[in-house]
């Protein structure tokens, strides 16, 4: 209740400040502020508010102030669609930053396409999608999962693979892609173990014992974890208790970042790996400045910064640049203008918006340190272009997304047809 009050107050504050300008540009924020996903999404809401505040200090966009419209879809997937409709139809926002889980994105997609809205989606996801109305500023599988597996295979000599995940769409799709990829690299089926667990699974004893057994055949074994959110804590604890160290069986996680580590006892996790496109510990000027701004905004000198936040920053900056280029906030014109635009990312490279609505991103592998930060042990040379449709799945191998030349999000290069559906 208190939290909600503060949020409303914050939103009102921004609103009343903005009301002084004659005309404002409305920015919708569609992140869960209550329920299961509040843990991750509240931070992104604050990030957008910070970016708006900073932009307004610089004089807004095209001389107009930005105004945040914050709604709370409460980790409830149908409510996401409802709130999106409200933002687009009732509040008439010019752009929306929002969603975390894939299921929430799938839930709002038809709404955005029907009302021709504009959504910036800042989280790494399973790919297999490219909507006219969505810009994906997080990583697609070829910008996170595949490079991480390459690192394990080439640098650590991993021969046996455990693909462990929470039982929902992102891990299932990612693991399908990874399995196909590993097999294409000559890994035998008996050297791959796939395991799914329910959301919030807390009893990891037998699964960890299985992993231990699977990993004790003399071949180097690694766990590729798409285990979601807080199920990770008991998982890593159990690994520590059963004395599986990162030296023997490293775990590389795609959903464990600085923010998640802040809530747990990091001792049993030290040395395990995570793959992201951004780490707080990366030492660049832009990164340090952004973190300082964030910590000042949130008034906590030890608040962490993470990958989806960087993706939000990049998405926001790209949108501002595109609006200024198109000289309008009209969704179609901004969507056309944004493709090909480049903004610096926080790690010293550039993020370029590609015709398939994905970004170029560098990939980093970090080892978890005791202070909850990461030591970078590996990184790609330069940026990797995001691929909407995986090259390793039989269904999507021939599918391409290109909103410039093909004007299609799922063009089949074999049948030379656009399937017609927008996503």
């Amino acid at each position, binding site marked *: *209740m208190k939290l909600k009050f503060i949020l409303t107050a914050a939103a009102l504050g921004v609103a009343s400040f903005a009301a002084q300008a004659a005309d404002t540009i409305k920015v919708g924020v569609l992140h869960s502020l209550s329920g299961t996903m509040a*843990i991750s999404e*509240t931070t992104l809401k604050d990030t957008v508010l910070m970016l708006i505040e900073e932009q307004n200090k610089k004089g807004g966009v095209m001389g107009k102030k930005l105004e945040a419209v914050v709604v709370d879809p409460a980790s409830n997937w149908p409510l996401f669609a409802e709130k999106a409709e409200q933002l687009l139809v009732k509040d008439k926002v010019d752009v929306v930053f929002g969603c975390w889980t894939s299921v929430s994105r799938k839930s709002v997609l038809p709404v955005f396409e029907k009302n021709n809205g504009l959504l910036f989606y800042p989280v790494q996801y399973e790919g297999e999608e490219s909507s006219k109305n969505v810009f994906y500023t997080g990583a697609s599988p070829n910008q996170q999962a595949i490079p991480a597996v390459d690192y394990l295979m080439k*640098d650590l000599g991993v021969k046996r693979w455990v693909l462990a995940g929470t039982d929902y769409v992102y891990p299932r799709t990612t693991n399908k892609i990874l399995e196909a990829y590993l097999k294409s690299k000559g890994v035998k089926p008996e050297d791959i173990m796939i395991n799914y667990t329910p959301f919030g699974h807390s009893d990891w004893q*037998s*699964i960890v014992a299985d992993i231990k057994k699977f990993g*004790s055949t003399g071949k180097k074994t690694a766990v590729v974890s798409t285990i979601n959110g807080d199920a990770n804590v008991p998982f890593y604890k159990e690994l520590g208790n*059963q004395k599986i160290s990162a030296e023997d069986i490293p775990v590389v996680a795609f959903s464990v970042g600085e923010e998640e580590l802040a809530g747990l006892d990091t001792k049993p996790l030290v040395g395990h790996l995570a793959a992201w496109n951004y780490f707080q510990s990366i030492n660049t000027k832009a990164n340090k400045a952004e973190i300082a701004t964030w910590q000042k905004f949130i008034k906590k000198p030890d608040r962490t910064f993470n990958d989806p936040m960087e993706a939000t920053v990049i998405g926001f900056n790209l949108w501002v640049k595109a609006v200024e280029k198109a000289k309008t906030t009209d969704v179609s014109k901004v969507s056309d203008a944004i493709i090909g635009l480049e903004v610096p990312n926080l790690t010293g490279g550039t993020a370029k918006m590609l015709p398939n609505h994905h970004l170029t991103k560098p990939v980093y592998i970090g080892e978890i340190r005791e202070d909850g930060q990461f030591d970078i042990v590996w990184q790609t040379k330069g940026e990797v272009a995001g691929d909407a449709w995986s090259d390793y799945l039989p269904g999507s191998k021939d599918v391409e997304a290109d909103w410039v030349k093909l004007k299609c999000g799922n063009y089949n290069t074999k049948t030379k047809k656009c399937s017609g559906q927008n996503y």
Partner: protein
Amino acid sequence: MKGPDVETNMQLRRNQQRRYRGRFALLCRPLLLFMLWLGGAVAWAQAPAGNEFDTAVASLPTASYMDKEALAGQIARSGHPQAQALLQGWLDGKLYADASGHIWLEGEGGYVDPASGSAGKVEADDLEKIGTNNRLRKGLKGMLAQFALASPTASARIRAVREMRRELDESAVAALQARLQQETDAAVTNEIELALALAELQAGEPSQRLAAIASLDGDRSAEVYNSLSQMASGDEADADAQVRAAALAAVRSIESWRSFYQGVETLLFGLSLGSVLVLAAIGLAITFGVMGVINMAHGELIMLGAYTAYVMQLLLPNHIGLALLLSIPVAFIVSGLAGVAIERGIVRHLYGRPLETLLATFGLSLVLQQLVRSVFSPLNRSVQTPGFLSGSLQFNDLLSVTWIRLYIVLFMLIVFAALWLTLNKTSLGLKVRAVSQNRRMATAMGIATSRVDAMTFGLGSGIAGIAGVALSQLTNVGPNLGQAYIIDSFMVVVFGGVGNLWGTLIGGMALGVTNKLLEPWVGAVMAKILVLVFIILFIQRRKQGLFPQKGRAAEGH
């Protein structure tokens, strides 16, 4: 010196194993020489001390992880008296470089120069840690193990030999052989001989290999199993048929032991999951079972207990273990008082109206969740695990049980016993039973029933709080903690038989073991579904659960 890239390093190790068999001796001699240099040599003590040590240490701040591994080997071989202390400090993350590139080792009293051991005046802010990664830590542990071979205590030497077994390269074998000559302790000698036999498996002569297999009989560790199963079949099977047969026999024997212990392990896992279920459900067995109140906020009372553990640790940051122990009674009081308040404020007005009770307590559970979100933030809080609860109890190479699980089983039994005694041997328990069996008669006998109701609800809630303290060690402490356990709790109570503590105990244990027995076959998701289906079918047949209540009370409800 530039380190090799990882591919060639892997190659090296593989090649080196083959060399033991005397097959590729010529081919990989230069590689082997390099390996020797890298891994550190037999006795650390021959090289001229000082110089090599100093240059290696000086180049540490700028070295890449690959170079660091080589530098570590150089330091280990230098024979410098401080080499061991430096490597140990490095492994423990206590090695730093200042701005000028000078290396400092963090000791108990402050920072010292690693070469001379003399203290220096440096500010902690100016220092940058010399990092390690997984590979390097493994290498450092191996090097330190070779130092530890000379340790005065036998147990440390045994640990060192076990550590070296993980990666038996030529230098390790030589070091072990050297140690064997002067070893006096029988246990250590035995351990070294086993390790050497493991290396002998790769020996040139079939007879030597046969002897090695024979001497490894009874050793069921993973290293032995791996080496033997590789020899028995597959791409790298042994050339000699007799050796292959012997290896196969040994592998079979290990495998039969393995499957036996696997069964034991699964059973233990089931018991521990069962105890968690019982702990979560036992408070509900009182409020729902004895009083008949459908309390949907039961999970949130568990959550309050878990947050109490968190707050206690915040209050006593230097005594994590003590804080956890203290939080058991404190959580009982906190959740108990919350329970009394709930009973007095809400439930009391709704006796005999189960649907309204359900809705009211469900609403209350949402209120409590949001309250916690507002007070503690929506993020999970970290409750530390004290040292005595982490790690595992190793029975043998194939069976180990994590301490925390053992303690949970024990803790559950204690809580259960205490609750049983309270209900059966105290005057409060007598009154509780009297009221639940026949309220009107109890009133007639002069029992203040409404006060007993509050006390009973408080007792059940307090137990939920205690369960929360235990769960804080197993799972996440966050606003959603309660939701994760409420369904399981009701499942256990209904399955066990409403109103029966023993039913809750047996029911929870049975569900835990069933779940764990199913899990290896059908996976965690399916196992949960199957258990639910089983319960639905079971309740259809036996509406009263495992242990139905008999007598007037049962009919009265």
